[in-house]
C-alpha cells in the first residue's frame, strides 16, 4: 500500500480487455485508482477520470500472467468476478490480483481475507444464478424460434450459452437478458451475444398456447394438497424469477397463503387490497425495467 499513489478514478470501455488494461496501468505506474468505471456509467466524480485506452497487447499480457503467476482457478474467478454484479467489482478484482501476484496459487484458499471472500461470494452468486436459470428459463416458440426473457442480477449469458447450445443443437433460439440489455442468439451451431434493447415479441400461436396450458395443468396437478408449503417453494425458487416462468407468472402477486385469511368475509377486502398493491408494484416494476433497458441498451458489449 505504502508505495502506491492514490489517483483519480480510471475509466475504461467496459470490456474485459479494458479492465485488464486498467490493471496494467495501475501496476505500471504504481498507482491506486479511487474507482474503476465503465464508460457511460452514472458518476459524480470530484475530478475527471483518467481514460484508459484498451490495448489488446497489454490485456493479453495481463491475461496470460494470471494462470501462470497465480493459478488457472484464479483466472476463472477473475472472469467470473467480471460478470458478477458485485459493487465496484473492478476495484475488487484489482485488489484480488494484487494479492494474488504477491501470494501465488494460495490466494484462492485465503477465505479469511476480506477481498478474497468478497470475490468468492460474487463468483458463487453468479454461478448459482446461472445454475438456477438453466432450470427456470422458459422458452416460448414463435414462428419456429424459441425465445426467452430473463432478468438476472449477474451477467449470466456467457454461462448459459454453452449449456443451451449443447442441449438444443438443432434449434434456433434467442435469450433476451432484459436487465443488461443483451441477447444470446443461436442459429445452426453459431452463438452470438449482442446488445439488444426493448425487444418486442410477436404473440404466440395456438399450438404454443396449448403446450403452455398443458404445462400449467401438470404444474398444478403434481403438487400434493396436504403438503402445501409456500415458504419452502419460495426458498428454492425466489419470487424474482417467477415473472418469466410460464407456470408461476400468474401467481406472482397472489396472496402468500389462503390460510392466513381467518374470516371469509374479509377475503373480498383482502383481495381488493392485494389487487391494488400488486397493480402499484407492477407499475413501479415496469418503470424500473424500462429505465434500465434504456440505459443499458448497447452501452457496453461484454462478450
Amino acid at each position, binding site marked *: 500500500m505504502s508505495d502506491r499513489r492514490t489517483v483519480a478514478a480510471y475509466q475504461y470501455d467496459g470490456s474485459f480487455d479494458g479492465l485488464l488494461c486498467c490493471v496494467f496501468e495501475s501496476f505500471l505506474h504504481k498507482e491506486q485508482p479511487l474507482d474503476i468505471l465503465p464508460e457511460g456509467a452514472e458518476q459524480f466524480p470530484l475530478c475527471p477520470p483518467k481514460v484508459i485506452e484498451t490495448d489488446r497487447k497489454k490485456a493479453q499480457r495481463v491475461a496470460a500472467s494470471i494462470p501462470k503467476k497465480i493459478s488457472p482457478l484464479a483466472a476463472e474467478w477473475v472472469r467470473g468476478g467480471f460478470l458478477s454484479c458485485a459493487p465496484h467489482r473492478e476495484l475488487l478484482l484489482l485488489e484480488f490480483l494484487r494479492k494474488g501476484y504477491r501470494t501465488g496459487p494460495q490466494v484462492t484458499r485465503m*477465505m*479469511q481475507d476480506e477481498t478474497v471472500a468478497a470475490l468468492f*461470494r460474487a463468483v458463487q452468486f453468479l454461478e448459482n444464478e446461472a445454475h438456477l436459470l438453466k432450470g427456470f428459463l422458459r422458452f*416460448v416458440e414463435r414462428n419456429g424460434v424459441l425465445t426467452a426473457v430473463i432478468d438476472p442480477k449477474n451477467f449470466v449469458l456467457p454461462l448459459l450459452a454453452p449449456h443451451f447450445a*449443447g*442441449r438444443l443443437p438443432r434449434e434456433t433460439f434467442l435469450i433476451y437478458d432484459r436487465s443488461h440489455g443483451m441477447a444470446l442468439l443461436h442459429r445452426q451451431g453459431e452463438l452470438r451475444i449482442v446488445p439488444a434493447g426493448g425487444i418486442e415479441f410477436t404473440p404466440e400461436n395456438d399450438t404454443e398456447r396449448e403446450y403452455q396450458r398443458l*404445462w400449467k395443468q401438470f404444474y398444478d396437478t403434481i403438487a400434493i394438497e396436504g403438503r402445501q408449503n409456500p415458504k*419452502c417453494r419460495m426458498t428454492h425458487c425466489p419470487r424474482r424469477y417467477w415473472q418469466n416462468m410460464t407456470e408461476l407468472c400468474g401467481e406472482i402477486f397472489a396472496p402468500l397463503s389462503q390460510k392466513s385469511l381467518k374470516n371469509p368475509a374479509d377475503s373480498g377486502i383482502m383481495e381488493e387490497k392485494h389487487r391494488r398493491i400488486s397493480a402499484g408494484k407492477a407499475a413501479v416494476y415496469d418503470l424500473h425495467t424500462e429505465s434500465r433497458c434504456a440505459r443499458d441498451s448497447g452501452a457496453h458489449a461484454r462478450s
Partner: protein
Amino acid sequence: MDLFQKLTILSDAAKYDAACTSSGVDRSGGTDGIGNAQACGICHSFAADGRCISLLKVLLSNACVYNCQYCVNRVTNDTPRATFTARELADLTIQFYRRNYIEGLFLSSGILKNPDYTCEQMTEVLRILRQEYKFYGYIHVKAIPGADPLLIERMALLADRMSVNIELPSEQSLTTLAPNKSRPAILGPMRQIRDGISQNQTDIVRSRHAPKLAPAGQSTQMITGATPETDFQILRLSEALYKKYSLKRVFFSAYMPVVESALLPSLDTRPPLLREHRLYQADWLLRFYGFKAREILDEAHPNFNPFLDPKCNWAIHHMELFPVEINTASYEMLLRVPGIGVRSAKRIVSARRTGSLDLAALKKIGVVLKRAQYFITCRGKLPDAARLRSENMIRAVLSDRAAAMLGLPQGEQLSLFHDPGMLTREDVLQCLTGEL
C-alpha cells in the same frame, strides 16, 4: 379423451412418487438430436408443496389390475382411468423439453394386463425418445416387479436411472397391504439392476462402446407412517440397501391418507412430515457424513427426537468429544459438528492451510455459527456467545419450530428468571436426552 385430461389424470396419479431427481449422469448431446444430462441435476420448477419439479412425472397408465390397499390406483377404487399411447407421451416429453420445462421423463405405470405387457409399453416410449428423437436427456423409469428379466434389461439400457419401489419397510407390512407384491419380486429386479450395472462397468473397461445400463444407478422409495415400523428399523433398512444393493438414493414418503381401508390409518391422519424430514436428515448423515445407523438410533432410542435434528442429538449425547478445535480437527470430526456441513467443512480445511482461523474468519468463509459456536473453539478459545451463555445452549440449538413445540419463548434465550410456571430447563434437558 384428450391429452389435457389424460395428463391431468396420469400426473395426479404419479404425484405420490417422491423421487424427482435428474442427477448422477453427465452426457453431452449429439448434434443430430436433442438434449444432454448434467451430473448435478437441474430443478426446473418448484410445486406449491415446495418439492422440486425436474422431470415430467407421469404414469403411462393408471388402469391397474393390482389391489394395493394404500394406492389410489388400486383396481377396486372408483377413479377415472387413462392410458397414454407411447407416441403421445414421447411427443409431449420432447415438446416440454424444448421449452425448457423439464429435464427429462420420469415414467412409471400401473399394471396394464400383466407386468410383461406393461414393461413392453413403457420400453416403447423410451425407444421412440432415444432412437427416433435421438433424445439425450434424462430418463428415470420404474422397473415393474414380476416382469421378465430380459424386458427389464432392455428398459434399463434405454434409461438413466431405474428404480424399484420397496413400498413398505417390512415384509409383514407388504403382505398385509400389498397382497399382489412380494419382497422377492421387488428385490429380484433390484438385484438384477445392481449386477447388471457392475457387469456393465467391466464391459466398459473392455469396450467403451458397450451400451450403458442405467448409468445414473438405481433408487427406491418407501412409505413411512402407514405401518408400525420404528425409525431405527427404517434407517437400518436403508443402510442395508445402500450397502448391499449399492443404491444411489432411498426416498421416504410420508403416508398421505388417500383411500379408506380398515388396514390403514384413518383418512384424517396428518402426514408425518416431521418424521419424514428427520429420516432424510439421517439419510444424509449416512451418505455424506460418515455416520452409521447405529450411531444415530439404537434399540433403546428407536425413534427420532422430534425437537433436535439427528446430528445435534448425537452431539448432545457425546459432549465428551466437544468442543473441537477448528484449526486442528480432522475433516471427519468437523463434519460431526452440528451446523457444519460438507461445504463448510471443506472450506475450513482448505482455508486453514493458509493461516489459522478465528471466529471472524469463519464468518467470512460462510460458516453458519448459530449452532456450531457451542461445539467449537478457535485458536483454543470458546466463542464468546458460548462462554457467556452456555446454559442457553439448549434453546440456541433448537430450531424455532421445536422451541414452539416445547412452549419456549420465541426469538429469545432461556433465562434463569423465566416463568417457573412454564417448562423448566431440566424438563427441556430431559426431553432432549430422551428421558421424558
